[in-house]
């Protein structure tokens, strides 16, 4: 028996269907991206961070001392693992999380106001600068949050919580007519 297996997105049930036009405040979900956890060996935090942050197409999100989530929109999960192994395989442990994490991108003029309904950190650009990331709670759910643009935030959540987080974000954004869709 040989066959192609379909990969079902965690938010497939929520987002399947014809895309609607995006409103000013919009929650966008990519069908796929590669995500990996990188855990630096003892004492090599700085070296690993240097190696990763100097590589194009890789986006680094801070999770804790010597621990990052690395996101790539150009690699396959297997490809990212291979690339990370080459980059820092002797300095860090690398774990594929592409299927275990879901990335949601919230953008729009009210993005900060919407997130402030669930996230207890200061999201003002002076306090949470473009490119900054951290682990936070959004309501009851643990997420990794990154300020990925002027009014753009990316949330990475464990797959089993994705539907609940999605529902929470839509409720938090109802005041601003938030829309949602898979990326084109």
């Amino acid at each position, binding site marked *: 028996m040989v066959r*192609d297996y379909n990969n079902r997105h965690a938010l497939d049930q929520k987002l399947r269907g014809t895309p609607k036009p995006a409103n000013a405040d919009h929650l966008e979900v990519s069908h796929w991206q590669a995500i990996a956890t990188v*855990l630096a060996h*003892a004492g090599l935090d700085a070296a690993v961070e240097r190696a990763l942050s100097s590589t194009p197409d890789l986006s680094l999100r801070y999770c804790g001392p010597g621990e990052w989530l690395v996101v790539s929109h150009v690699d396959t999960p297997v490809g990212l693992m291979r690339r990370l192994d080459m980059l820092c395989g002797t300095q860090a442990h690398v774990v594929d999380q592409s299927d275990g994490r879901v990335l949601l991108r919230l953008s729009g003029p009210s993005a900060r106001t919407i997130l402030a309904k669930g996230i207890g950190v200061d999201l003002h650009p002076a306090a949470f600068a473009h490119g900054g990331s951290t682990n936070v709670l959004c*309501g009851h759910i643990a997420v990794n949050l990154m300020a990925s643009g002027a009014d753009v935030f990316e949330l990475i959540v464990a797959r089993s919580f994705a*539907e609940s987080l999605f529902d929470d974000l839509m*409720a938090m954004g109802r005041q601003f007519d938030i829309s949602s869709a898979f990326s084109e």
Partner: protein
Amino acid sequence: MSAYRLSSGGLVDRSKVLSFTFDGRPLRGLAGDTLASALLANDQLLVGRSFKYHRPRGIVSAGPSEPNALVTLGSGARSDPNTKATVAELYSGLTAKSQNRWPSLGFDVGAVNGLLSPFLGAGFYYKTFMWPRQLWEKLYEPVIRRAAGLGRAVLERDPESYEKSWAFCDLLVVGGGPAGLMAALTAGRAGLRVILADEDFRLGGSLLSETETIDGSPASAFADRVAAELRSLDNVTLLSRTTVFGWYDDNVFGAVERVQKHVAEPSAKLPTERVWRIAAKRALLATGAEERPLVFGGNDRPGVMMGGAIGTYAERYGVSAGKSVAIFTSGSSGYRTARGLAARGMSVSTIVDSRPDAVDAAPDGVRVVRSGSIIDTKGSKRLSGIVVERSGYEELIACDALGMSGGWSPVIHLACQRGGRPVWSEDLKAFAAPDVGGGLRVIGAANGVYTLSGCLRDGAGKAAAIAEELGFHAAEAPLPVIDAEVEPSFAALWYVPGAKSKAFVDFQNDVHAKDLGLALREGFGHVEHAKRYTTSGMATDQGKLSNINAVGILAGMRGVSPAEVGTTTFRPFYTPVSFGALAGTSRDTHATPTRKSPLHEWAKKNGATFVDSGLWFRSAWFPRGGEKTWRESVDREVLNVRANVGICDVSTLGKIEVFGVDAAEFLNRLYCNPMLKLPVGKARYGLMLREDGFVFDDGTVSRLADDHFFVTTTTAMAGAVMSHMEYCAQALWPDLKVRFCSVSDQWAQMAIAGPKARDVLQQLLDEDISETAFPFLSARATALRGGINARLFRISFSGELAFELAVPAGYGEAVADQIMEAGRAHDICAYGVEALNVLRLEKGLLTHAEFDGRVTPDDAGLGRMFSAQKPDFIGKHLSARYGLTAADRMQLVGLKLVDKDKEKDMRAGAHLLKEGMKPSTLNDQGWVSSAGYSPVLGQHIALAFLKSGRERYGEKIVVWDRLRDHEVTAEVCDPVFVGSENTKLKA
């Protein structure tokens, strides 16, 4: 008719008429009115009945300190009891009902309590506890509960929605009066991130009822100008209709915003109320000051109000509280009120001044009675006159409204919520805020600054200082100019002697001056005792008006200074906050998150019935056509796994990758059984203990490489095990080179169990998984045909030949579909957690039903896993404690029902008794941890813990189920009910 709308003036929109009802009576008000001002404009003075004596009560204040005018707004599920009419913004269609009256506000049966008042003095409630005892539950309690009361809570589901939000700022200004506005403006211009919160629906505070002018124009126009400039600044957030209710650690403030309390048809997009948690680098308290009522005979008659409130109703709302107003004052504020009223064309007849030699100027034609006091009031449901006394001469003066002005108390509630006690100031004759550090400072009237120009200066100055502290610069700006202002002075007057009728201290709780005397006489003179004994300062207003007089009276009675009496304790909340707002969105499906397995959709299309399991949704069983009960489905699934093959979703197990050169050593210390020499490519069952020697969790440990392990935990303990590991790595053994992370969500994991499991699974794999190539307890990374990465484990939780297959979560559904297809010829079935449970029960395998935190490895029959040879591991040392090694500890056994009657069963939680013993926990021999029906044996079986159980196989024992009041006899046996030789496992 006596209260009425003035023909002009006020900050109400006379072109916008709003209709509303009070107790069903249709009334009209104006946009900009509160419910209280609209009621007054309609001459509806009587608004409620008092708590204990059911006395008629009217509006007293014009703000949040209101003790009397509590009404229920709305109807049905949308009812909002105990709403203060003095802050409720009027809207078209508002319906209000009075409270604590029966059958009607005008005629109230409970008023008979007034005649019983000699028996209802302070502490009567507590005295009913004492004697006669048998009357308490039958008579006192129900009667008191019915008679005393405020609004009634609604039992219907609350249809409103609520939310919470965080906010961060450099400076939080609490209160939008003159000091607060000036502070926000100064800080806002300097570039600070400022939040200004004010509980009113219009910014300005006292400026809105001010008679003095600022820079030559009305004070309210100045407020509007400042508010407009603040609105234009990006770095300033204005929160109106927002009450800051609490001050918490780290300078976080709690506030509630009434987003849609003032609209008849709320928008579905907005919450009704929003709770703010505001983290502020600095905060300024600009909450103003509260005018003090005077305690004299008959002071609770409707029509007796705060002097400042009468002024506010006239200036801000264009409403006259009466045709003929009298003022009773102990200071200059009473005169200022009188001048304001006269300027509005209202008739002020008399000022009764308690002081002998005041120099304040009364308006022309107003009689001033110096050294005077009021000892009684006349009228039934509203004031018709006052009895004024001077040197024994009593005089009845007709009036229909009386303004009380007993001086001022700064509103310092928030500043005292974190342990700081108010400080008595002899200068202010009031309690002032303590020094609570730089995070929170007090400005304006709350700081005892009572002139308008002083408030503006205080606000601007303190805001500029904060700006400098935070590295900003506030440019000097000239302060606005105020004309002819008066510094209010007053004499403290706690109690007016000679009262001819009850002189109330606390209106809301019907506490009068004599109650405080009784408390003192009966040994409850301490201010905290007096509060509880008399109820003075309790209930919804928490004594905002009354506390200061209660303290003053107690001080007077004891002959000491108020400083010595002190105050009761200030705690959040400043004013009541609805439970709905505090819960926010955390209700219904948003109360807790729901976790879904990557195989959820697969299970759904295979007809699964789901069960809540912690946050997870797990498939419980998969009913097929014709099956009428869950037992039928579960029995079929169990028998099919034993005879053929089944597939079960086990993705919810916790999964942790452990790396590092010391990973093996780390795990060896975490588990009680040896892990150091686990070969690569092998899995092992592992048992973790707590430090105290009891079982913490169990799972499997697989070694994928020398320095790479894959650990599973139970579903329930996944988070706890991860935290435990973090603690051990960071705090106990920081020297070990080990890193780990959770991959629970990365893998969809399924168990394929049954004699035909290999035949099914081999179809998806190129790799040989025969008994020789992949024996029991093998573990390795592999790939499915088609190139999907996978991990395969030869482990079993059913005693059958079994595999666990993990694939990246997104592929889980497709792979499970493929397994079902490959298994069709082998009669595969999907099975759920119920069948899983029966399968493990038949094999005596354990879960957290057994590992309940009181069980050692030996209790559970796993004593051989306890590796005494290992130098150390968590739980080793405390396992040697006497109690944990005692011979009569309860040990795991199996139970089989002696009587095979299918109606009789056993349930978890039942207790075990020796035959013939009286059913009592005194005779307890043990308890049932798990029970179920074994379709293989055709009888009910159970796992249980029994004293010295392993020596008692064959004994008959009584299973006593106290909940169902039901006893059955069972035989004690080996906990492995089915296939104890384990031949199928290794086939």
